[in-house]
Structures are given as structure tokens and as C-alpha cells.
């Protein structure tokens, strides 16, 4: 039996109140007020498709042996690099080693479902597991419908033959060059066509076509479907499509437009992770992906489903939130306004690629050293052991520390230095089992930081080099209880 063996989810903690979007924009478009219900997820300034994929991957690996992963696919239309394999960055941040297949899948809202079908069909996971990470951080025009309805997020599913929690029953794809929206190589924002046309000529025709082919092929009746995933920012469309196919109304998965927003390529997989959290053994799950046609995948939950829940999962990720009513900050984080950053923000941020490559284990993997002579853990790993009683030369083995908790020793909130979201929190972190590092903190709630606070580390953007179109990543500490 092959199918889904594990899953994980990540939703940025920040939730922008939609009323803030309406407050800032309804002078121009009064119709926005009607959409201003609830909130949407928003990337922090130091989050992007890569960092969210790493988080979702870590959640998935909380129930999956990293050593079993032999392929990693990253699906997104918002990959930070057009030519530098993004999935490799993610795989190294997840410490998946150097012996696996990696691939970026892009250019359509069904990139993730298409990748999943390829993984399931190709038998790529004959041995071990293949990991699919779907992640999206779409920018949208100021005051647009998209700004109201979209969110940022990432999800992970693993495909394999052992410990299957949702058995693969079959898939179908209907292909047509239906252009409901597009983004050309020279633009950063989408251009969309009329919503009603997309509904009538797109969803209502394309999805039933693919689904009916699949139901026919697998001999399953529409009424037997327990969970139907159709990701869309059109609130009423999934129910209408379900009705047209004959799927029960209560099988339709909620798109969470009001408390998350539609997370693009990640959304079908993110909704699937919620379904997997809720599904009972034997439930039939129909996953679709819409974009230049429709992907349809049929799965059946197994007896193992209840036992393999990730650490955070969709419900945990959705519950972990902080409200933000500052629309201006959202615009700044998404580079939609030309913000005065002060002269300290002008420092040249050239990335020295040779040095970066030399330090990649530290920078991407958060790998320190453990001394063979005295057992001292240290980060970074250097030539001589840091223990003054030891000082061993070349005595350290690699010691991955990205999963190790730490405690804050010293800290401050710096308002002088440049930061995209001042004050800049940083400090000295002492890790469990040894090793300490002066490092950046991220997403610290005012008034919560103190010596002794427990922290976990997260892969984040450290700096943008806007002059050369590069971005650097490193690990930052965040209060573990947040």
C-alpha cells in the first residue's frame, strides 16, 4: 500500500485584521468593507516561501524519520529564487543530507497537487519517503480583493509505503488553458479576470470533469466522499461544485477565508492537513487542485491515521496567533511602500558566496560541534575546542542544533540598529546540553523577554541585499511558549 505517511503545517503567527485593510482602503473601493470579516495570515518581514516550507517540513518530521526522506519537492509560485534551487535550501535547513532528489515545482495554482500526483504515480517512494512542501507568500495590490482574501502559509505531506495514514486510490487531471489570472516573468503581482466568469466557466466546469473521471475510474460514488478539498478564494464555490458533483454538503472542507486567507499553491495541501487531522479510518478524501485545469486525487484514511499526528498540525498552527491592526506594517513587510529606513539601513549587504558556502553548515543547517575529547557542545564549530580546559584541535564532530531548545542569558531590545520591525531583539542564548550563541530573536512580544526565557530556533531571513537581489538566511530564537 502506498499513500500519505505524514503531514505538517505552518501558518505565520501574525494575523492582520481585515478591518484594518478596509479602514485604509474603503475610501477608494467601498466594496472592500463587505469582505472585511475576520483576519488573514501575514508573513513576518523575515519569513518567505523558503522559511515557511522549512517550518512545515519540521512539523512533518516530528512524526517522520528524517533519514527516510529520499526526495523533496517544493511547490510554490512565489519561490524567492528563480535560478537557485529553493528546495535545496529547504532540504539543507531540514538537515536531510546530500543524498536525495530535490525539485522546485511552480507556475500554477495546482503546482502542489500536480507534484503530489507525480510522487504518488512515479513510485518515487518505493523505498523511504518523498516529502512535498507547498508554500506560498503572494503579494497583492494595495486595496485589492486579493489582499483581503489571501493569506500566507505552508504545508507538508510525505508519501511512502510504510506507516500509510491515507491510502492512494487514484488520480486524474483535466488540462485546459483557462487563464483566470496570471503573473508574467516581469511582474510581481497577479492580474485577474472577472470572478463570476471564473466560477461559471472555470470551477463549475473544470472540477466536475476531473472528479467525475476519477470517480468513474476508481468506482467510488460521489456520495461516499467524506472530505472534499477545493481551494479557492470564492466563498460559495466549493459547495456549489460539490452539489454539482453529488458530494454531500458536510463533506466540503472549509477554506478558512475568514481566519487564515487562501494560501495559494499551499492551500490545497494545507486544507488536506486539516482533513487528515479530522479524518477517521476509512474516510474517503477527495483532494483537488485548480489552475489551468484540475487535479483530483482520491485517498482513503487508514487505521494508522489517529496515531501519526504532527506536533503542531493545522489546528495548532491556526491557533498560534497574534493580532495586528497595523496595515502600514503589512505594506512595509511586503515591499509595497517605499519606506524610509534611515542611513543605518543603507549598509551594503553584499553576500560573499564563497564564504557563505564555506559556512553553509552553520548558516543553513545550524550545525555546531561536539568535542570528541571533552564532550563540549559549541556553535559555531571552530578549529579549537572552546573549553579552556581542553582546546582540542579539529576535535569536534558535527552537532545539529536546530531542534535544541535554549534559554536567554542576556538580551536587549535595540532601537538604534536597523531592523525591519524595531526594536531589534537579540541576545545570548544558552542551549540545552551546552553551546551558546549571540543571536537575533524574532517575533518577541513586548514585555515578554527576560533572562531565563525558553527559546526555540527558527530558519529566517537575516538580510535582504536589494542592490543585488539576494537574501540571506540564518536561525533566530523565538520564545518557545509563544
Amino acid at each position, binding site marked *: 500500500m502506498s499513500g500519505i505517511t505524514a503531514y505538517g503545517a505552518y501558518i505565520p503567527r501574525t494575523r492582520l485584521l481585515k478591518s484594518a485593510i478596509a479602514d485604509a482602503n474603503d475610501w477608494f473601493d467601498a466594496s472592500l468593507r463587505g469582505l472585511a470579516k475576520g483576519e488573514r495570515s501575514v508573513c513576518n518581514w523575515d519569513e518567505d516561501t523558503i522559511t515557511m516550507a522549512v517550518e512545515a517540513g519540521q512539523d512533518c518530521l516530528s512524526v517522520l524519520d528524517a533519514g527516510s526522506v529520499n526526495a523533496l519537492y517544493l511547490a510554490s509560485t512565489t519561490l524567492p529564487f528563480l535560478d537557485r534551487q529553493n528546495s535545496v535550501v529547504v532540504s539543507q535547513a531540514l538537515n536531510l543530507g546530500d543524498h536525495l532528489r530535490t525539485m522546485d515545482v511552480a507556475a500554477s495554482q495546482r503546482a502542489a497537487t500536480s507534484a503530489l500526483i507525480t510522487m504518488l504515480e512515479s513510485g518515487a517512494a518505493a523505498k523511504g519517503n518523498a516529502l512535498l512542501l507547498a508554500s506560498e507568500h503572494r503579494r497583492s495590490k494595495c486595496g485589492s480583493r486579493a489582499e483581503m482574501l489571501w493569506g500566507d502559509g505552508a504545508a507538508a505531506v510525505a508519501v511512502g509505503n510504510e506507516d500509510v495514514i491515507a491510502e492512494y486510490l487514484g488520480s486524474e487531471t483535466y488540462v485546459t488553458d483557462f487563464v483566470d489570472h496570471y503573473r508574467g516573468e516581469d511582474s510581481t503581482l497577479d492580474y485577474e479576470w472577472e470572478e463570476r466568469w471564473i466560477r461559471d466557466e472555470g470551477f463549475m466546469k473544470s472540477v466536475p470533469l476531473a472528479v467525475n473521471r476519477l470517480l468513474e475510474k476508481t468506482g467510488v460514488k460521489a456520495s461516499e466522499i467524506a472530505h472534499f478539498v477545493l481551494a479557492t478564494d470564492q466563498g460559495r464555490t466549493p459547495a456549489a461544485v460539490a452539489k454539482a458533483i453529488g458530494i454531500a454538503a458536510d463533506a466540503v472542507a472549509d477554506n478558512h477565508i475568514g481566519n487564515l486567507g487562501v494560501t495559494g499553491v499551499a492551500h490545497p495541501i494545507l486544507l488536506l492537513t486539516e482533513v487528515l487531522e479530522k479524518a477517521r479510518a476509512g474516510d474517503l478524501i477527495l483532494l483537488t487542485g485548480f489552475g489551468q485545469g484540475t487535479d483530483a486525487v482520491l485517498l482513503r484514511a487508514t487505521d494508522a491515521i489517529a496515531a501519526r499526528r504532527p506536533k503542531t498540525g493545522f489546528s495548532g498552527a491556526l491557533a498560534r496567533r497574534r493580532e495586528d491592526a497595523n496595515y502600514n506594517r503589512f505594506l512595509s513587510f511586503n515591499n509595497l511602500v517605499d519606506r524610509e529606513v*534611515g*542611513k*543605518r539601513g543603507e*549598509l*551594503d549587504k553584499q553576500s*560573499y558566496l564563497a*564564504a*557563505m558556502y*564555506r*559556512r553553509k553548515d*552553520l*548558516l543553513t543547517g545550524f550545525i555546531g560541534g561536539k568535542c570528541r575529547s571533552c564532550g*563540549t557542545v*559549541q*556553535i*559555531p564549530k*571552530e578549529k579549537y575546542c*572552546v*573549553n*579552556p580546559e581542553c582546546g582540542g584541535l579539529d576535535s569536534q564532530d558535527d552537532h545539529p542544533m536546530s531542534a535544541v531548545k535554549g534559554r536567554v*542569558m*542576556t*538580551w*536587549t*531590545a*535595540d*532601537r*538604534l*540598529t*536597523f*531592523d525591519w520591525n524595531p*526594536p*531589534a531583539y*537579540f*541576545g*545570548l542564548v*544558552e542551549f540545552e546540553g*551546552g*553551546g*551558546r*550563541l*549571540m*543571536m*537575533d530573536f524574532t517575533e518577541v512580544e513586548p514585555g515578554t523577554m*527576560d*533572562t*531565563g526565557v525558553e527559546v526555540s530556533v527558527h530558519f529566517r531571513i*537575516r*538580510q535582504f541585499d536589494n542592490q543585488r537581489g539576494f537574501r*540571506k538566511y*540564518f536561525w533566530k530564537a523565538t520564545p518557545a511558549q509563544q
Partner: protein
Amino acid sequence: MASGIKDKVVILGMGCSKFGERWDASPADLMSEAFEEGLADAGIDKNQIEMAWFGAGIDAYNVGSSAMPLSIALRLPNIPVTKVENMCATGTEAFRGAVYAVASGACDIALALGVEKLKDVGYGGLPQRTRGVENDMYWPNLSAPGAFAQLASGYRAKHGVDKADLKRAMAHISVKSHANGAKNPKAHLQREITEEQAINAPYIAEPIGLFDCCGVSDGAACAIVCTPEIARALGKADLVSVKALQLAASNGEEGGFSKWDGSYLKTTRIAAQRAYDEAGIRNPRAEVSMTEVHDCFSITELVTMEDLQLSDEGQAVRDVLNGDFDANGRIPCQIDGGLKCFGHPIGASGMRMIYENYLQFYGRAGDRQLKDPRLALNHNLGGFPHQNICSISIIGRYE
């Protein structure tokens, strides 16, 4: 066993420019201003200087690299000039080079001059700059106040000090230094402040507020040094000599090994003990008459009082609030106003401190003159609490 530097070298003359936002003064102007004063004070001719050490901290925003800026600015007669840089210890490092040259017998008279032009940068605070290719990849983008503010969190955690009490002691330090600086015509900031002002000022880096920070200034200072014999031969009486020159550099242990608790400066403790040993000081509290310490931030001065053994561990808050280091206290600290009022032109600061020692020993300190000072300790700290360079010089009457 090395005999140390004690009493081998004396100060023949010193000069110090006016510190401040010297918009119209170039680095060469500042160097000349300090040098002409020092030369006149020494009573020698420029051509009698045989070697020079030049301190400048931040190349990119200052005079550029190498010794040439000094040699060209002063039109030195092609003598050996060495440029030194060691963060905030740079000024003291230039002094150390010149003193060691004289002590070694390599030359009779040597010049040490430090300069920094910070106010060409276009914004307040020290210039934002690279920390090196690899360090820039993962070090926090920490400012100087951001680095030193962390001492407060470490100190509070170690000694269980209440936030408000620590802040009040920090404020006392700044109020005291402003009161001293108000009496110093060469200081950048020459006005008194109140404790309320200091406590209520906006945060720069929690818990460091605006008045917990030293100024940012342009300035230069210099010393001309020689042996006691030569000074006497040149007619100088009541000599002032170098008693100790020590430096301690972090090796990464504080920031990388699980031992240091973040509440003190390991290097200061090491350098201080070595300096006391070198100067033959057994009881610093009884023997040291005055200190000029690296008060880049008020919290640094507070912690340094313990690291120099002038307060018991955990008692600096009490001692500071008790006025122990005020102008009329048991060991006045920053009697010239300190970095607080002079600002911190990096290359110059170490020698600006020694300049105040020198004025005090010769009774030339005007309204802030102390009664019969015997030994003065100067302290610089460059870098961050978890990894830094500490320099200590002890200067005293040659007896």
C-alpha cells in the same frame, strides 16, 4: 620573570583637542590641534620625535588605513610610524606602542596620537559597519548600546537587582559625569542633567536610555613619551610615569562556553589584576586616586567598578548611589566628564583619559582639580560584553 613597564617611561608632554561635533575640522585639523599643544607642553622640536604610533578606529569613516595620514598631517620627517587599531582600546594601544619603544631603548622620544572623525557619517551613534565577511552572516546586527544593554540583564539576573534600582544607579552615573563635564572646557557636553531626565529619556536599547549613552564626537589626543632621564635632562620636574599597561582579549569563551554568566567583564577582571600586579598595587581601593573608565554606557561603568575591585561583587548599585565615585567620593570616576561628556572618538579616547590624569597630577585641572592624586587608572573596553578587548593603563607620580 619580566620586570614590567613600571616607571620606565614618563610623559614629556600631552595634548588634547576640543572634543565635539567639529563640523569644520578635518582629521588633520584635529591631529594638529592636539599635537601642537603636546609639542609645546613637551618643550621639544618636532624633529626630536624619533618614532610614532597612530591610533584610528574606524578606517572607512575616518582617515583611511596605514600610518600615512598621521605622517602627512603633521609632516613628520619620514620617521617610523605605526598605525594601530584595537576597537575602543585603540588610543591606549597607540600609547602602549610608543611607551614600549622608549622602554626598549629603540628610541629616546616617541609620539602616540589618536584621532577619530565620527561626525562625517551623517547620523547619530557609531557608524554602522561591517564586522567581517563571515561574522556579518550570522552575528546580530547589534548596535553598541544593544551590545552593552545586555550587561544589565545579566547583572540583574545574577544579583537579583530590581529593574528600577539598577536604572536609578545608572542615572546617578550619568548625572555625576555630566556634573563633572560641565566643568571641563574641552568636553563636548558641558551641561548638567537631572536624575529624572536620565530615567525618563527614551530607550535606545532597553534598559539603556538616551542619557545612559556616551556622546559621539570628533577629537584627537596625543602623548610624547621618553625615559625619566631624558625628561630630566630636558628640564622637566615632578615627573609622571607609566605604572602599568595591560591588555586582555577575549578568546570566545564568554560567548561560546557555558561558564560566564553575562554579569561582568571577564577581560576587565584579568587586565585589572595584571595591571595592579605590574604597578605593585596591593589594595586598589586605598591606592587608586581616580579612575577614567570606559563609560560608553552607564551600565558599563557600574559593572566596571566591581571588575576593577573598587566595589564588592553585587554592591556597585549601592556604592554608586552612595556617591562613592562622585567628584567628592572615595574614588572619583570620570572627573573630566568621561566618555559621557567627551564622546568617544575611538582612536583618541584612551589618551584623552591619560590627558586628564596628566592635568590632575600637574594641578592643571581647573575647577575639577582633585586634591593630591597619586595613582590614576584608565580603562577601555572595545567590542561586546561577550567578546571584547580590554585595556588598562595606570599612570602615577614618578617617585
